[in-house]
C-alpha cells in the first residue's frame, strides 16, 4: 500500500509538471506565436491610455521581456522554493508554493486562492453529501421497484436534472426562493467560523442546485448498477441463505454496484474542488470557480496558472484516493 501511494505521488508530480507546461504554453507561448509582442501583452494591464514608458515599466515588472523558458523557470522556482518580490517600498518573500503575483493587482496569487478555497470546499462537500445520499438512495429504490410509478417518476426527474443547465436551475431557485418567497434572501457566503447557521442557510440553494444535477446522474448510475448486480447469482444465494433483504441489498448488492460510482465521484469531487464555475457565478459565491472566471476575463496569467495547477492537483489526489478506496470496498481488487 505504501509503495502504491509513493508511486502514485511521484506520478502525480510528473503529471502536474506536464499540466504546468501545457498551461504555460497556452497562455504564454501561443500569444507570442500569434504575433503579440511583450508591449501588447503588457498594455492590457496598465489601465486606460497608457504611455509607452508606462507600458515598458509593466513589461519589465511582469518579466515579459525575458525569454519564455526563463519565465517558466521563475514560475517553477517559485512553486518549489519561493521567490522574493517587490510590490512597493519593501521586498517580501513569497513562500512556496508561490504562484507569483497577479498581473492586475500585483497581489500574491496563492493567498487569494487559499481565501477562495473554503467557499468552494463548502459548496462541493455539502453538495456531494446531498447528491450521494439522494442520488444513491433514489437509484437503489428505483432499481428495487423497477417499473413502478416511483421508478418512472424518479427517472423522469433525473432526466430533467441531467438536462437542465445549472445556471438555469440556479436562477430559477433564486427567483423563487430568494426574491419571490424570500426563504433564502441575500445568498452570500458567510464563513462557517463567523456564523455556522447563516453559512448553512446561505448555501442551501447552491447545494441543492448543484446536487440536483449530480444526484440525477448518480441515481441513474446507481439504478443501472443495482439492476445488474441484483441479478447476480450470489444475490440469489444470499437470499436463499435467509439473509435479511436489507443486508442483501446494501451489503451485497449496493457494495458491488458502488465501484463505478466511486470512480465517478472521485472525478466529480476533484473537478468541483477546482471550482464549481457555473454554480459559483450564478450564486455569486467567491470561490475558486469565480476566481477562475475573473482570472480568464482579466487575462491574469499567474492566476490562471494557479487555478489550473490547483484544480489538477485536486483531480490527481481525488483519483488516488478513489483507487485506494476501491480496494477497500471491493476485495476482488488488490493494489499492486
Amino acid at each position: 500500500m505504501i509503495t502504491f501511494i509513493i508511486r502514485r505521488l511521484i506520478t502525480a508530480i510528473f503529471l502536474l509538471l506536464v499540466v504546468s507546461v501545457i498551461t504555460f504554453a497556452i497562455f504564454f507561448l501561443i500569444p507570442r506565436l500569434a504575433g503579440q509582442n511583450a508591449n501588447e501583452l503588457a498594455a492590457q494591464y496598465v489601465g486606460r491610455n497608457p504611455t509607452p514608458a508606462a507600458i515598458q515599466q509593466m513589461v519589465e515588472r511582469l518579466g515579459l521581456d525575458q525569454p519564455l523558458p526563463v519565465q517558466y523557470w521563475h514560475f517553477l522556482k517559485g512553486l518549489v522554493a519561493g521567490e522574493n518580490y517587490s510590490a512597493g517600498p519593501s521586498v517580501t518573500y513569497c513562500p512556496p508554493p508561490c504562484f507569483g503575483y497577479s498581473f492586475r493587482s500585483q497581489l500574491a496569487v496563492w493567498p487569494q486562492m487559499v481565501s477562495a478555497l473554503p467557499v468552494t470546499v463548502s459548496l462541493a462537500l455539502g453538495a456531494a453529501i446531498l447528491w450521494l445520499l439522494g442520488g444513491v438512495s433514489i437509484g437503489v429504490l428505483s432499481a428495487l421497484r423497477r417499473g413502478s410509478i416511483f421508478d418512472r417518476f424518479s427517472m423522469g426527474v433525473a432526466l430533467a436534472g441531467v438536462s437542465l443547465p445549472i445556471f438555469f436551475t440556479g436562477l430559477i431557485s433564486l427567483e423563487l426562493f430568494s426574491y419571490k418567497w424570500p426563504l433564502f434572501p441575500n445568498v452570500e457566503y458567510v464563513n462557517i467560523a463567523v456564523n455556522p447557521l447563516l453559512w448553512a442557510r446561505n448555501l442551501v440553494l447552491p447545494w441543492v442546485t448543484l446536487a440536483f444535477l449530480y444526484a440525477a446522474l448518480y441515481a441513474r448510475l446507481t439504478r443501472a448498477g443495482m439492476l445488474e448486480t441484483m441479478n447476480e447469482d450470489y444475490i440469489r444465494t444470499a437470499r436463499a441463505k435467509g439473509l435479511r433483504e436489507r443486508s442483501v441489498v446494501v451489503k451485497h448488492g449496493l457494495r458491488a454496484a458502488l465501484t463505478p460510482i466511486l470512480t465517478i465521484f472521485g472525478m466529480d469531487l476533484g473537478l468541483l474542488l477546482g471550482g464549481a464555475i457555473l454554480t459559483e457565478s450564478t450564486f455569486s459565491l467567491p470561490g475558486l470557480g469565480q476566481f477562475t472566471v475573473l482570472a480568464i476575463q482579466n487575462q491574469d496569467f499567474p492566476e490562471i496558472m494557479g487555478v489550473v495547477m490547483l484544480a489538477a492537483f485536486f483531480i490527481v489526489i481525488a483519483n488516488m484516493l478513489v483507487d485506494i478506496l476501491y480496494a477497500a470496498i471491493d476485495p476482488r481488487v488488490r493494489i499492486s
Partner: protein
Amino acid sequence: MAALALAACGGGATSTTGAAGPTGGSTGGSTGATGGNAVANAGVTGIANPSDHKGGTLTFASSSTPDSLDGGNEYYAWTLNFNRLYQTPLLTYKSSPGGAGTTMVPGIATALGQVSPDGLTWTYHIKKGLKYEDGSAVTAGDVKYAVERTYDRGVLANGPSYFPQLLADPTYKGPYKDPNGDLTSIVVPDPYTIQFHLLAPFPDFDYVVGAFGQTAPVPKAKDTGAKYELHPMSTGPYMFQSYQVNKQAVLVKNPNWTQNEDTEARQNVDKVILTLNVNADDIDNRLISGDLDVDSAGSGVQAAARAKVLGNPSLLKNSDNGFGNREWFIYLDSKVAPLTNVACRQAIEYAANKTDLQTAYGGPVAGGDIASTLLLPGMGGYSAFDLYNAKSQPGGDVANAKKALTTCGKANGFTTGLAYRSDRPKEVAGAQALQQALKAVGINVQLHGYPAGNYYGNFAGAPTFMHKNNIGIAFGGWAPDWPDGYGMLWALTSGNSIVPTGNANIGELNDPAVNKLFKDVASPKLTLDQRSAMYGQVDKLSMQQAVILPEVYAKVLIYRPPTVTNAYIDNAWGMYNYAVLGKSS
C-alpha cells in the same frame, strides 16, 4: 479546461473608465417612463429622498472587481466615486445636482490652484488641522509622496498618466525604484503648501489634481505599495475596517473626520459594505427587493430588470434615467484603405442606421439619445450640429451615402473589416446592425470579434494590427476624464495621442488644424469660454474628417430602493454621488 473555456464566454464586464460627464444638468425630458402615474427621475431633476437622517448601513454591490481601492491606482468612474468615502484629494467635484456638480471645489486644499502668469506653476494650500484616521496630521509632503508613488507604473498601473506627462521630470522612477530620488517638479516649501511645476501650460490642471485620487495624501510610513489598497489611510468620512480581495470591503466611520473640513462628503450612515463579484442580475433583484442599496458600477439595470422596472409604476417611481457620462461610437480608421479617403468614411456616416444602433444599445431609455457630435450635450463648446443627418434621417441617408461613395471612387462599394468586443452583447448587436445597413449601399463588412479585456491593448487599439488585418471600423466608446473638451476630445482626436498599443485615437486623426487648436487652447491667456469655443471647433473639424461615427449619448436606468436618501445622478460621474448617500431606516 473546457469548463474554463465555457466560463469565459459571456459576462461582458463593462469597464467604466473616465471620470466626468456633461456639464449641463440632465433635466427632465427623456424619462422614457411608461405606465401609470409614475414619477420617475427624481434623482435626475433634483435630489431624491433628501434627508439628514443618520445611521444605518449602506450596502453596495459590484458585478466585478474594482481596478483598485487605492486612490492612486484607480481609473474606473465608480471606484473614483466610491473613493471619496475614504480619501480626499486636493480638490474634488462639488456635490451638487446639475451642472454645478462638474466644477472643482476644495477638497483638502483651501482653494483652487493659484496659477502663475506663465501658466507653469500651480500652488495649493492644505487646510490646517486635517488628520488621518489614526489622528496623525496630513501635510503637503504626504500629497507629494502620493503623486510620486504613482510614477511606478509597474506597481500602481491603473491610474492616469497625466503627472508624468505634464510635470517637469518625466523620467523620475518613483520612490520604490528610486528611494533616494526626488520628484523635483513638486515643491513643498512648507508643510501646508505644495507647488507643481509644469513643462508647459495646462489650463485644466485643477481637474488633474481633483478628478482622480492621485493627490489624496499618503503617509510614506504607511505605504505598502500594491497592498496599500487593503487599507488606505483615510482622510474621508469612512475608513476601512476590512477588505477581502475579490470579496468584500467594510468601511466604518472615521472618528478623525469632521464635516467642517470636508463640505462635499457626508457621514450619514454608520457602516458601508461593498460586496464584489455579485451576479449582475442578482444585484438588480436585490435592489428591487430592498436587500441592496446601490449597484456600485452605476451603469444601470440589466435587461431583465429593465423590463420589470419600466412596466411597474411602483418600481418606476424609484428609478432615474439620466445621462451616463459617456458616448458610444464607432471608429473609422483613416489609415486603412479605402477609408484613407474621407468621402468613403463619410459614406459610412451617412449609411449607418442610427435607430438600429440605438436599439442595439438598449433603446432611448437604456441606450441613450442618438448622437451627432463628439462633445456631450452640456459640455462647454457643444453645439447640436448634425453633419450626416443622424437625427433628421436616423434610419440612414442612403442617397448621400451613395454620393459619397461615388466621390471616393467606390460607387459599387468596398470591403473592410469591423472590430467589436465579442463579450459585449450590445456591440455584437450593433456590429450586426451596422453590417446590414452598410450592405444596403454596397459596403461589405467582415465582422471580427475580440475579447474586451485586451481589445484596446492588442486589437483595435494597436494600429499595426488594424492595418495588417484590413480592419477599418471598430466599435468603441469614451467617458471623458473630466467634463470639458480636453477630457472628451484629446485622446480621441489629437495627433499626439496616437500610440502603438492602448490607442484611443483609433481613427488615427492627425489633422494639423486640430493639433494646432489643442496646442493653442493651452494658452493661459484664454478664458474658459474661449477654450470651450475652440473645443467646439475641434469637434466640428473631427466630425468633418469622419473618423468617428457617433452612436448614442449614453443613458442609464438606475433603480434605487426607497430607503436610500440624498440620491441624485451626479453629472461628474454619470451615476449617484456616493459621498452623500444615506439611509432613511
